Each structure stands twice: as C-alpha cells, then as structure tokens.
C-alpha cells in the first residue's frame, strides 16, 4: 500500500524554451554545463526543448577511463558519419584523420545530442583528446555536460574559445558559474535566488534568462551595427579632411601649409563632427526592435563580421579620398580664375579656406558650424588676439559671394549623388534581410520565422523524470513489512498499470507538437 509520494519540482524560469529556440535560430550554439546529476540535466534538457524526442540519437558518454571515453566518442562520431553516408550506400571503414573529420562532421544529417558526465569530461579535456571531443560536440545540435565542476566549466569555455574562434557567452546564476563567466568573452549573471556572486563577476546581469534574447538580438545587434557605422564614418571624415592637404601640397610647394583655418582643424573632430557621429553611434537603429526579435536571422552579419572588415575599411577610405578630391579640386577650379562680383580677387588663401571648410557642413550640423565660424572671424577676437585669429571678417565677406555658394552646392551634389545611386542599386539588386524588413513595415505576422513552440499557459516548464526511478522498488514492497499476499497482488496490478500509463504519456507527448504543461507524476 502506497502511503505517499514525494516529488521535487524544479521550475524553469518563464520563457526559457522560447529563448533557447530563438537563439538557436540565430545560429547560436547552446551548451548546458551544470553540476546536477545526469538525470536532472537530461530532464531539464527535454523540458527546455534542447533535447527533443525526435532527435536521431542522444549520445551519453559516461566512461571512467580515457580509453572508454575515447571509444564512446569514436562510436558517436561513426554513427553521425554513417547516417550521412547511408543515403549514398557507402560506409566508411577506415579511421578518419582529424582534419577530414572536421569537414565530414560539419554536414551530418539528423540531429544529435551529446550528454557527458563530469568524470568523463575530465578525460575528454586532456590535451590529446580535447580536439576530438570538441569536434564531436560541435557536430551535435545540443551538448549537455552534467556533474561538472566549476573548473571544468571554465575549461570547456576555454576549449571553445581556443579552437573554434567563436565568441563565447556564459550565463549563470550561482557562485559555481563565476569561473565560467570570467573565462567567456561575455559573462552574464542572473541575479536572483542564488545570490549575487555571478552578478558581481559578470559583464551584464539581469534577473531572468529570457532577457538574454533581448540582450543579444536587440542591444547586441544594434551595438555592433552602430560601432561599425561609427568606425566607417570616423575614418571617412578624417581621410577626406586630411587628404585635402595632400592635394593642396602640390600647389603650395609642399610647404605643409594647411588649407583650413587652424581653429577649424582644432575643432573639427571635437565640435563640428562629433555630434552627428555620436548621435549615430548611440541612437542608430536599422530595424525596429520588434522585428529584431522576430527575425533572429538578422543576427548573422555580426557573427560573420560582415559590417566592418578589410573590404569595408577600404571602401571607407576610397570614399574619403573621392570626397577629398572633389572638395579640393572643385573650389580650386572655380577659384583659379574667379573674381568677386565687385571685381576684387576671390582667390585669396583665406576665402579658399572658408569655402572648402564650408563644403563640409553640408553633411554636418550647419548651425554649430556657422556659429563658431562667425565667432572666429569676428572683429572682436581679432582685436584681442590679432596674431592668433587671422581670418578676420573673411566669413562674412566670402559667404556673401554667390559663386562660393554655387561651388559649395556643386561639391555637395557631386559627393552625395554617387553614394545615393550606389545604395539604391544595391537595395534593388542585392537587398539583405534588414533592407527588406525596413520596407515591409505594414505586414502582419510571418509564419515561417516563428518556429517557437507555443506554450499555451504562462506556467513555467516542469522537469520530470523520464526514467522509472525507484517507484517499482518501493511498490514491490521489498522494504516494507506487510502481508506478502496483499502486496504481491497490489504490486502486480498497479505497477503494470503505472508503467503502461507512463509509456502512454510518453507517446502522447511525443506525438503532439506543443509541449503543453507536463504534470508531475502521480502515483
């Protein structure tokens, strides 16, 4: 007779399965490193949908010696490779060398998972086997390491960092995660029940696991985008600005005479061009945040380093040089033969300087530029420091000439038009995901992107035991003093029905697509 049953509920936080599914769609590999025992870890894997019932196979590595672990890893690899070659009809008989291994394992068919114990991990992380272990693990869709010590967590992260050249993020909430958080490129601490050691050691911290998706897909992605645009723009403006002096050198006997007023040069980076750059670097958004979360594929350019690499850098530089050519030679061409409308010369050094410098603000905040320009060229400052502020009255005079404004307008047009044309053509011919998303502002839901399993209710997921556990042992009455007759009859009936109901439940949950709420076991 069963007197009672105890069950321990290990609640997952809200939104964990969805987050994991979304991050997997964003091409992020997720590994679980936990100190729990194997059964708990596997159950948690099932409940947060890292492991699914329709996975081809879940490899469990529990060897206690180096040889056993090696053997188990080799068998896992063979199975993965075999599944790939089954369709072709060939089988790989010989042992593959490690270099061939990488290419073969990258194209496995089917989804695999690897579960490895702490003591096996200790052997697998040895110098001669770590690469094998890493290749096997990376070929699997999900990796769960259980009974892992804090040191081993750090070692696993270190292994991935060293060989995979990927950016690693470690997220944890307890003091045993601190070493892993510190080792990874980005450490995230979850502040909550287990105290704040993880938070103190981390780069970012928040209170729920599900905030990770916003951190990565919105904040992280925008941060990368902004940084790249900022860098490109910074190099461009400085190149354009400085190359003008290079061209002027040909005309001033290479005497290092500056084209601009010295105060323009001093204030250029600080005042004139700082605001637009900062604004872009802090506020720029290419796609609204909801779309960022809906389309994890937008995360890819950051992973593939597409927005600022050698090619982009050289394009920036080329644009800078092109702008500098225009910005010098157009005013030069105009001023070489020009006069003012009252006959006096226009082509004096200071007027030229003012014209070239004013061509810039077509791309910058005009008001700031003009305010400072007129202040610098004012009589007041010249009176006070005649040898410092030499450009007296120049702005007012030069900028009253229609020729000067026409020159500036022409320079602006010729600088900007090719860029607009290129961008438009690129949008028409090769739009990438963010461009198409910007256009599709009004569309409603998109089916294909949302492959996240729907949780109907807002209750958190439950982990429950897939194994039989000790129920049968208890029910068999071997550790209870009751009449054997009554017990045996009761045992036979209830144990079979219990097992059958368990099997039925398992098949039910496997067939239905939505996870639903899995109720804890009832006797």
């Amino acid at each position, binding site marked *: 007779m069963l007197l009672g049953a105890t069950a321990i509920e290990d609640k997952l936080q809200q939104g964990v399965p969805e987050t994991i599914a979304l991050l997997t769609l964003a091409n992020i590999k997720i590994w679980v490193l936990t100190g729990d025992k194997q059964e708990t870890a596997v159950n948690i894997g099932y409940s947060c949908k890292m492991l699914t019932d329709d996975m081809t196979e879940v490899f469990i590595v529990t060897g206690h010696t180096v040889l056993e672990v090696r053997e188990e890893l080799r068998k896992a690899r063979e199975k993965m490779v075999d599944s790939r070659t089954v369709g072709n009809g060939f089988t790989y008989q010989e042992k593959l060398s490690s270099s061939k291994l990488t290419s073969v394992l990258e194209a496995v068919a089917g989804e695999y998972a690897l579960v490895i114990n702490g003591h096996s991990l200790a052997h697998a992380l040895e110098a001669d086997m770590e690469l094998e272990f890493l290749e096997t693990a990376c070929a699997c869709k999900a990796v769960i390491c259980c009974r892992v010590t804090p040191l081993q967590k750090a070692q696993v992260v270190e292994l991935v960092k060293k060989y995979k050249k990927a950016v690693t993020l470690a997220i944890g909430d307890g003091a045993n995660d601190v070493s892993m958080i510190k080792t990874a490129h980005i450490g995230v601490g979850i502040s909550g029940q287990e105290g704040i050691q993880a938070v103190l050691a981390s780069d970012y911290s928040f209170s729920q696991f599900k905030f990770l998706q916003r951190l990565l897909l919105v904040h992280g992605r925008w941060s990368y985008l902004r940084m790249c645009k900022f860098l490109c723009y910074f190099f461009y403006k400085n190149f354009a600005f400085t190359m003008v002096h290079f061209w002027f050198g040909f005309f001033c006997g290479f*005497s290092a005479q500056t084209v601009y007023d010295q105060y323009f040069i001093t204030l250029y980076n600080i005042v004139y061009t700082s605001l637009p750059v900062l604004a872009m670097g802090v506020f720029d958004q290419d796609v609204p945040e909801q779309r960022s979360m809906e389309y994890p594929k937008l995360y890819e350019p950051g992973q593939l380093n597409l927005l600022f690499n050698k090619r982009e850098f050289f394009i920036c530089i080329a644009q800078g040089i092109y702008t500098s050519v225009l910005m010098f030679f157009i005013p030069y*061409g105009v001023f070489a033969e020009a006069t003012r409308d009252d006959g*006096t*010369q226009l082509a004096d050094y200071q007027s030229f300087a003012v014209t070239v410098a004013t061509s810039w603000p077509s791309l910058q905040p005009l008001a700031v530029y003009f305010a400072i320009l007129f202040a610098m060229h004012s009589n007041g400052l*010249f009176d006070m420091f005649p*040898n410092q502020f030499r450009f007296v009255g120049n702005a007012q005079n030069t900028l009253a000439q229609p*020729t000067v404004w*026409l020159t500036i307008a022409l320079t602006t047009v010729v600088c900007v*038009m090719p860029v607009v044309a290129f961008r438009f053509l690129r949008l028409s*011919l090769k739009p990438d995901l963010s461009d198409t998303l910007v256009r599709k502002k009004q569309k409603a839901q998109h089916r294909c992107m949302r492959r996240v399993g729907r949780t109907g209710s807002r209750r958190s997921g439950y982990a429950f035991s897939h194994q039989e556990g000790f129920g049968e042992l208890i029910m068999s009455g071997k550790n209870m003093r009751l009449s054997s007759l009554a017990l045996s009859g009761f045992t036979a009936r209830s144990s079979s029905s219990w097992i059958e109901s368990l099997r039925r439940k398992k098949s039910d949950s496997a067939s239905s697509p939505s996870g639903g709420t899995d109720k804890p076991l009832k006797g």
Partner: protein
Amino acid sequence: MERRSRLQLSRLPDITAMKQQQLPAYQLHFSATMVFSIFFASGVFCLFMGIFLILSAKSIQKVEINYTKTCGNCAKLREDAFNHNKICTCSIPFVLAKSMEGNVFMYYKLYGFYQNLYRYILSRSNSQLLSKDLKAVEDCAPFKVSHKEIPFAPCGAIANSMFNGTTKPPYWPKPIYELDPDDPENNGFLNDDFIVWMRTAAFPTFKKLYRRLHRIHYFIEGLPAGNYSFNITYNFPVTKFQGEKSVVLSTLTWSGGSSLFLGLAYTVTGAMTWLASFAMLAIHFMLKQRKASTSKWQSKALKGQSRK
C-alpha cells in the same frame, strides 16, 4: 512574496526609452520614387545652372597680355639685384576689337609665385599692421629688424616681396608712407595696393586687382574699341624663379570673372545625373519585369501542383 517584490523594485533598472532602447527612430530608405525625383530634379537644376553660368561667363570680355619677356630686356635686367636703381620701361600696344562696356577692372597676374607657402604666410605681424604695437615683429622672421636694429614697418616676407613698380623693406626704394604720392589718404598701412598684396593668394597662379576704370568723359560707357597701349615700369623680377606676369583687363558679371569652370562643372554634373537616373530607371524596370515573370512562373507551378 512581498519581500521579493520589494527586492525586485530596488534592483529594477530604469525603464526609460533611452535605456531600454525604445527611442523612436526613422530610417531613411531609398524608395524608387524618392531617388528618381531627387536625381531628376538635381539634374535639371545643375544643367540649367551650368548653361546659365556658361552664358554669363561668355559675355565677359577679357584681355590678357603677358609681358614677362616682351618688355625689351627688362627681364634680364631685373634678374640682377644690383640693377634695382635702373629704371626700365616699355610700352605694349594692344587692340580692342569690341568695346568693353560697364566697369572695367585691371589686374596684374602672376604665375608661379607661391604666396601660399607656409613660412611666407606666417611672416607678417597683424598687431603692427593694426597699429596696436608697431614693435611686435617676432613672427616676421627673417625680415624683423634692419642691420641697425630698427624694426621694419611693415615687417615680414609678404610685405617685403610686394608687387609694385617699386618695393621696400629691405627691397623697397620708398618707405611705406610714400607709396602713393598723389593721394595722401592712400599711404601708410592703408595703401590699397599694400592691402591687396598682403592678402595672400591661395594658389601660385593668381591675379590681384590693380586699378579700376575711372568712368569719366570719354570712358563713361566703358572702354570703347580702338588701339591702346600699356606703359609699364618693369620692376618686379619674375624670371629668376621661372615665373611669369601679365596684365589683365576684364569686365564682370554677377558670377564674377570669366571662368568657365563652374558652368562646365555644373553642366557635366547635370548631364551625368540625368544619365545615371535613366540608367537606374532602366535597371529598375528590368528588375520589376523579372520579378513579375518569376512570380508568374511560381504561381503557375503552384497551380499545376495543386491540380495534381
């Protein structure tokens, strides 16, 4: 439960639009209509502006006479600094086929004189020129003080190399207060020629205003057609540095000067913008057709499948 909620509140980050990255943003996206309209409009504007500028530049009349080597052997004479006392004059005739109407300006034009050299531009003293401190000559090296330790007025290389029939400190035959014997107002630092020269030019080839036509009596309408000649006192040596000098007579328009560059540049820009916009329009339509044809094909394929 209550304690937890209080804890949560204390650790809750600010929910402001700025910190939660929820600021409104506007993305400039290049729709076809916008791009094409901008390109066409700017093309039209540039074309018209260019034609207008070319026409106004063409309406200017200009006479330029390069007298570097044509003024007898004055060039050779001036190459030797010891000949600075010797006066060398010549007279160069020229013919105006059409009369020059309106204001006529006379310039002297120098080729190959780098007034934009770094040390040259530095070598002046604005305090001295403003009469704030006549002795402030530090920047004017090497033309600071004479061998008698008297500071030059005006000091500096710019002043020293002044273009005129005559020059002083230390190569000026006349001091600054005697630059213009006819007009007492036009002496000292306020001398027009001096001021014009001190305004350093941007390029090695430049022209500076020398005189204006005084429209009285016979010249009230401008310069009528006929035979003229320039009487030149050749003083400024240019052949030593392979430079040249000429005198220019020119009328003016609103856009100033007879340079065709701006007009041409505008016309070329307008034409290229138009060509570019036509090319982009063509590409745009080709793409649209291709998309339409592929989607038609796709829908046909789907229909075929569904029927089966």
